[in-house]
């Protein structure tokens, strides 16, 4: 079975999202950009929507002692990593778009307030 992949195309750029199955970020069902925030968890709340662990194959590899996961569980882990990649990339693009506008607005506000920058 091949690996999931994605391609983003925007007015100014394109970006390929590839999965590396050996990378730990594609070996978990718990994404970094999904689920309850650290702040919420620190308040003592339980994440009732926490994703279930990947399903193991009944016969564990006796030679390596390493758990083997079903093909679909591997796909779910790869999708979780790919989802994080896409979320992080688009969040960065959103912030990049916002910053110049905000700094310009901030400058305009400073100019209007006293005509000089605060020290």
């Amino acid at each position, binding site marked *: 079975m091949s690996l999931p992949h994605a391609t983003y195309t925007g007015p100014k750029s394109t970006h390929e999202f590839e999965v590396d199955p050996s990378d730990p970020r594609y070996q978990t069902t718990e994404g970094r950009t999904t689920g309850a925030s650290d702040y919420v968890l620190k308040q003592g709340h339980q994440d009732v929507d926490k994703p279930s662990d990947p399903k193991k194959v009944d016969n564990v590899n006796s030679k390596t002692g390493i758990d083997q996961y079903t093909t679909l569980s591997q*796909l779910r882990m790869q*999708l979780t990593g790919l989802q994080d990649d896409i979320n992080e990339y688009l969040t960065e693009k959103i912030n990049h778009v916002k910053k110049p506008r905000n700094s310009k607005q901030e400058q305009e506000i400073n100019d209007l307030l006293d005509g000089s920058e605060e020290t």
Partner: protein
Amino acid sequence: MNKGDTSFEHSLHLEIPFESIKQADVARKVLLPDPIMKPEDFQVTYSTQDTKLICDFESVDERILRVGVNSVIESIKTIVETIDELC
């Protein structure tokens, strides 16, 4: 790309390989009824190619694309888990 008066300048093409043609088609059929909350800002089309589920997203900006893509991938993960448990 223009659809009506809306310009979808941001797109994402997603390919997900399943174990069989049937699994990919089941996933497509499960996703189809999900309503699009703001069709004037976001569109998604589902198709299959052999054992692959293909999702094509289009949006007016990065923010709406992020929200829409994240939501669909979350649904796909649930579908994958369900097939894994039942089949």
